[in-house]
C-alpha cells in the first residue's frame, strides 16, 4: 500500500517536471538566440549626403518621441525602432508628423531576451526641416531604446557619396560565446575618396566593461558601448577617412568584457573627389531573423534533475 502511494507521488512529481519541460517547448520561447549579424540592406552612390540621427535611450515614455531636422530631397530612408523585451503579441505603432504611418507586431530582428529591432523603409513621408516620429507600443515590461533614422538625400551641389547602410541585431554575449561581429562594406576599388564617415549604433553596452571597435583593424574606440546616448544606447559618429582601404572596408565590434552587447547598425559614407558614374541606390533582400527556442542549458539541467530524481526514488526502493 505504502509502495503504491509512493508510486502515485512519484508519478505526480514526474508529471509536474514533464509539464515544466513541455510548456516552454510548446510555446514560442523567448530566448531568441544570437540574432542576425549585420549585413548591407542598402547601398549606392548619390550626389548629396547621408543623415544619421536619433536617440534617446530607455525611458519607458509612451509615446516615445524623437525629432529629426532633415535635409530636402530624401531618396531613401530607413527608420529603426529598437525595443526591449519583445514577446509575441507585442506591437508598435509609428506616427510621422502626427500622421499614423503603420503598425508592426513582428520585429525584423530579435535576439537574446527579446532585444529587438523594427525597421521601416520610409522614404516619402518626411519633409525638409523638422520631423516628428512618435512611437506608441504594447509591450508589458518593455519599451523603446531608441528611434534612429538613416537617410540618403540628394543635393546636386554636393560631391558624389558612396554609402552602405547595414542593419541587424547581433547579440554578442558570454552565454552565446559570441565575441565579435564584423560587417564588410563590399565594393569595387574606390577611386579617389575623401571624408569617410562611419556611424555605429549599439544597445546594452556597460560603462567600464571594455569593448572595442575597429575599422579595417584600426582601433576606433574602447568602451564604446557605455550608454552615452541614453540608457543602454550608443549612437556614434567616427571620422574614418585616414583608415580607408581601396575596397571592402570593414567594421568589427569586439565584445571584450561586456556581458551582452548588440550591434544594430553600421553606416559608412565616403565622398568621391570626382564623380564615379551615375547615382544609384541598390536595396538588398532583408535577412530573416534566426530564432532559437530553448537554450540547451535549460534542457540539460531539467533532464539531469529528472534523472537524479528517478535515481533517488529507485535507490530508496
Amino acid at each position, binding site marked *: 500500500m505504502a509502495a503504491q502511494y*509512493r508510486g502515485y*507521488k*512519484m508519478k*505526480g*512529481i514526474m508529471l509536474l517536471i514533464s509539464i*515544466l519541460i513541455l510548456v*516552454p517547448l510548446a*510555446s514560442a*520561447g*523567448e*530566448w531568441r538566440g544570437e540574432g542576425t549579424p549585420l549585413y548591407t540592406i542598402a547601398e549606392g552612390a548619390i550626389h548629396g549626403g547621408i543623415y544619421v*540621427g536619433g*536617440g*534617446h*535611450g530607455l*525611458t*519607458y*515614455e*509612451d509615446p516615445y518621441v524623437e*525629432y*529629426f*531636422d532633415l535635409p530636402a530631397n530624401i531618396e531613401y530612408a530607413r527608420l529603426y525602432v529598437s525595443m526591449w*523585451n519583445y*514577446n509575441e503579441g507585442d506591437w508598435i505603432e509609428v506616427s510621422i508628423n502626427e500622421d499614423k504611418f503603420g503598425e508592426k507586431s513582428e520585429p525584423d530582428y530579435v535576439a537574446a*531576451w527579446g532585444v529587438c529591432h523594427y525597421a521601416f523603409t520610409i522614404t516619402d513621408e518626411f519633409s525638409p526641416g*523638422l520631423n*516628428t516620429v512618435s512611437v506608441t507600443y504594447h509591450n*508589458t*515590461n518593455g*519599451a523603446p531604446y531608441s528611434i534612429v533614422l538613416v537617410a540618403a538625400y540628394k543635393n546636386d551641389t554636393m560631391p558624389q557619396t558612396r554609402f552602405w547602410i547595414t542593419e541587424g541585431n547581433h547579440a554578442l*554575449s*558570454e*552565454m552565446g560565446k559570441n565575441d565579435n561581429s564584423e560587417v564588410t562594406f563590399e565594393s569595387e576599388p574606390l577611386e579617389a575618396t575623401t571624408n569617410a564617415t562611419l556611424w555605429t549604433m549599439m544597445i546594452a553596452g*556597460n*560603462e567600464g*566593461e571594455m569593448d572595442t571597435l575597429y575599422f579595417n583593424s584600426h582601433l576606433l574606440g574602447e568602451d564604446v558601448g*557605455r*550608454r*552615452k*546616448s*541614453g*540608457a543602454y*544606447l550608443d549612437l556614434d559618429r567616427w571620422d574614418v577617412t585616414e583608415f580607408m582601404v581601396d575596397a571592402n572596408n570593414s567594421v568589427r565590434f569586439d565584445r571584450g568584457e561586456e*556581458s*551582452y552587447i548588440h550591434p544594430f547598425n553600421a553606416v559608412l559614407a565616403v565622398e568621391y573627389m570626382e564623380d564615379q558614374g551615375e547615382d544609384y541606390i541598390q536595396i538588398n533582400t532583408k535577412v530573416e531573423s534566426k530564432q532559437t527556442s*530553448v*537554450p540547451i*542549458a*535549460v534542457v540539460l*539541467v*531539467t533532464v*539531469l*534533475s529528472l534523472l*537524479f*530524481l528517478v535515481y*533517488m*526514488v529507485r535507490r*530508496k526502493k
Partner: protein
Amino acid sequence: MKRLAFILLLIVFLPHLAAAELEIGMDIPLKSKEIYQEDRLVAGVSWHERGQVTLTNTGDEILHDILVSVDVPLGMDIEIPIQAMKNISADNNTITASIGELEPGESISFIFSVKPPESIQYKKKGSFVISASYEDGAAPHSSSYTHDVEVVPPPSWITYATVLASISIILLAFLIAWKFNVLEAFTTIDLITIALLAGLIGVVFRWFWQTFNDLLGPLGGLLFTIPTAVLMIIALQLVRKPGTATLLFTVVELVALIVWGTNITVWMGWYMTEGIIVDILVLLFKKDYADRRSTAIIYAVARSAYAYWMFYFFFAPAVWKVYYAPWYAWGEVGIAAIGGLIGGAIGYNIAKKVRGAMM
C-alpha cells in the same frame, strides 16, 4: 468708509483679476513617472538626462515676447536636443528659450538635457531656477519658478565600500565554513541535490520567468519567486544541514554566471546574503528545516522580500544608477513577499512529498 474699503479692495484685487499669468512647470528626468523616481538624478551616469520645461498661459490675455531662462545647478553640462521648439540655446550654465506668443490656455514645452556631475561625495540638493519675462499687451511681466532636484552620489566610494563588504561576506562565509567544517557535513548526495536545485533556479526557472513573465504583467516576478521559494524549501527539507540555503544561492549565482554570463562576481557576497538570512532563521527556529508550514512560509517570504528589496534599493541605484519610484519599488517588494508566501506554502507540500518519495 465703505467707499474707502471698496477702493482698497480694488487696489488689492484688480491687478490680479486682470493680470496675465504664466505658469511654469518642469519634469526631470523625462522618464515614465510610473517607474522612475522624479526629481532625482544620479551622479556619474554616462548619458545626459533629459528634462522638460512647460509654460502655460493660465490668464485670459495673449502673452508676447516670452523669454525664458533656466539656470542649471551644479555646473551640469547642457545639451539641447533637436525638438519642435526653435530658438533655444545653452550658454555656460544657462538655457535660454525665446517664445513668440502664447494664447490663453495654451501650453508650450521645450526639452534640454543635462549631465549630472561625474562624482559627488554626498547627496546634494540642486535647484533649476526658471525665470520668464513676457508682455500681455498692457505691461511687461515676469515670473519665476524654482525646481528642486536631488543629485545622489554615483556608486563611487559607496560602491567600493559595498564591494568590499561583499568580498568580506564571501570571506566570512568561507571562514565559517572552514572553521566549523560546514562543507564536510554535506554528503555527495547533498551537494548533487543542491547543485541540481540551484541549476533549476538559476537556469530553468530564470529562463522560464524571462520567457513568460509578461503573461502576468506586473505580477510577472511571481513566476520566479514562487518556484525559487519552492525549490529552496525542498533543498532545506532534503539536505537538512546548516548553511544549505547559503550554499544553494551561492551556487545559483555561480550557475547563472557561467550559463547566462551575468557579471556579478564582485557582488557575489550580497547575493549570498539571501541564503544567509534563511540559514539564520533556520537556526533561530532551532534547526527547523521548513518542517512546519509556518516556518516554510516565513523563510520563503523573508528570502523573496529581501532579494527584491536588495534589487530595488541597493543594486539598482548602486550598480545601474537607476532610482525607481518608491511606491513602485515597495510594490515589487510586496509582490515578492506574496510570491514567497505562495511558494513557501506550495514548497512545504511538495518538499514533504519529494522527501517521502526519496528518503
